[in-house]
């Protein structure tokens, strides 16, 4: 089991360096002189140019620059934002809980609806229930999610006036950011109705972000279940006289989950990308919105750092999924 994890970790090391290379190369790849690019339209005088080159270490050979960059990264220094002048890492982790909260709610939505849907579709294979569930999930991942978000806003926020349009909390409330998770913080605060408001604000973005994972999880659960249901050990379980519920929910599902867990994990990585669109549409103050803003405002250090950190998150999630996989697959655990 630990050998398994260790091997996984070993693979991550070159990937980590690869990503630092991408992040590092990103700024160097920008057309034009890096200093001028960073300075933007203001332009720099020749002396200032030389000064900045030295300060940013840009006069050193590339490989040396890369090494010092990696050294900085390993110490936690991911550069300073050109716009806000704050350390990129600090900005990132301040905004991270918002995205995390959204992502967690989206995945919960996807899993709680998706897995049962997939099981039902598999058990009722070929019937209209199966076809209905599969059609809906197919539509689910054929949609552009930014459009889906806009559509839901038009429908629920505008026409029906059910949900708010943007943000995490109604401006009427003042909540102390203790954990960064609005649901928790609003419960901790004294403000009555803050929790409800926070929940209200979460509903649409979570649904929009979770739609594609929902569709994928439903389909994958169905195909995993179908495969498992035709296995010999399911026949044995039936031959023991066990109830159909037990056969499906325990004997079949347990084996199907092995594949589905991996799928769920992969979807979390996809979510971090989808968050960019969702946060933009709903004005959700998380990492997605921040990195788009950084790209557009040419805050290159923020983009560089953000890229590295987001990739880092993805790698951590994937490693966790591998760990979970090792725990539930008895061939690896024993």
């Amino acid at each position, binding site marked *: 089991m630990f050998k398994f994890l260790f091997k996984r970790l070993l693979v991550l090391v070159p990937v980590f360096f690869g990503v630092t290379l991408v992040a590092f190369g990103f700024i160097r790849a920008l057309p034009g002189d890096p200093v001028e690019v960073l300075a933007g339209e203001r332009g720099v005088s020749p002396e200032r140019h030389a000064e900045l080159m030295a300060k940013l270490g840009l006069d050193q050979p590339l490989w040396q620059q890369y090494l010092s960059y990696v050294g900085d990264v390993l110490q936690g220094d991911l550069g300073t934002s050109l716009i806000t002048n704050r350390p990129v890492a600090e900005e990132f982790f301040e905004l991270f809980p918002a995205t995390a909260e959204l992502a967690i709610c989206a995945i919960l939505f996807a899993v709680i609806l998706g897995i049962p849907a997939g099981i039902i579709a598999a058990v009722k294979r070929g019937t209209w229930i199966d076809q209905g569930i599969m059609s809906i999930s197919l539509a689910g991942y054929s949609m552009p999610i930014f459009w889906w978000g806009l559509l839901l806003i038009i429908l629920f926020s505008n026409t029906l006036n059910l949900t708010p349009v943007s943000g995490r909390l109604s401006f009427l409330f003042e909540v102390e950011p203790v954990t960064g998770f609005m649901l928790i913080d609003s419960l901790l605060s004294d403000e009555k109705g803050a929790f409800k408001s926070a929940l209200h604000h979460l509903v649409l973005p979570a649904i929009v972000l979770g739609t594609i994972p929902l569709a994928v999880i439903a389909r994958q659960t169905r195909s995993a279940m179908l495969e498992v249901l035709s296995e010999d050990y399911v026949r*044995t379980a*039936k031959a023991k006289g*066990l109830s159909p519920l037990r056969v499906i929910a325990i*004997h079949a599902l347990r*084996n199907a989950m092995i594949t589905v867990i991996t799928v769920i994990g992969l979807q979390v990585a996809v979510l971090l990308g989808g968050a960019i669109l969702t946060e933009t549409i709903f004005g959700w103050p998380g990492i997605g919105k921040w990195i788009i803003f950084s790209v557009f405002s040419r805050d290159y250090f923020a983009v560089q750092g953000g890229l590295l950190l987001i990739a880092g998150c993805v790698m951590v999630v994937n490693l966790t999924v591998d760990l979970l996989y090792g725990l539930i697959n008895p061939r690896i655990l024993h």
Partner: protein
Amino acid sequence: MALLEITNLTVEFATAHGSLKAVDQVSLSLDAGDIVAIVGESGSGKSVAMLALMGLLPWTATITAAQMSFDGKDLLTMNAKQRRAIIGKDISMIFQEPMTSLNPCFSVEYQISEVLAQHFGGSRGSHKNKVIELLEKVGIPAPETRLKAYPHQLSGGMSQRVMIAMMIACEPKLLIADEPTTALDVTIQAQILELLVELQQANGMALVLITHDMAVVAETADRVVVQYAGQQVEQRPVTELFNNPRHPYTQALLSALPEYAKGKTLNAIPGVVPGQLDRPVGCLFSPRCEHAKDLCHSQPAPRSEGVLCHYPLPINTTAVIQTEAVS
């Protein structure tokens, strides 16, 4: 009253190419303590008939029978819940591939105690001692150490023993063994068969042994049912069958045994078992039968003198085959 009474069982599968008759008018009557072997090539429908009995066939199967009853209960009219009360408890079945027939995610103890808890109530943990007793019974050494083992940690022979333990846990009146040794090493085969016979004698349960191996039949069975292409061609007590086969197919099967090979060639039966699309008009065995006459090719075989043949082989002719294997 017989323990198991099956009369004219027919199983048809709905396929893309039409209806496939996997089992055609098969009858079987069993008393407590009987050992019956069902023999035939692949495609003879031997497993399907027993799976129909257990209710383990997919929804594409249509099961019809004049009678199918076990221990006085009518299996045709019973609902699923009533059937589940009998399956695993009074009738059990063990399968051909033990390595894939055990759930890879659960331990040996879990899977055996589960069937006990299902039929006798109580939590799984309360049956722990019984599980150890069962594992001992099936010949697994140091059973306490095997409780937490997972199927992928077991060998083929060990897996089959666990399967057997699981399926005799509730002391069934009838155990169906579907080619239990086919997937195992030759040395293990003998051990497993011995185990089955031992258990049968100890518990007084009826045993149906499905196999394609005539030697196994000779070793273990009291009575033999020979099946071909879904039809029951002959059913006789074992010694009679081996000494005096009356259906040409049975005779061909016996003479195909390596013991009767002439010189270096085996007496293989020419041709193949008919599939769904090439069923002959007339007797199903006629294309491959060396005694076939015109009537055989044009008319389906009737059941005369207990044998499904137009011209059953005569009793006590020069075609008698002595079998040293039996005794």
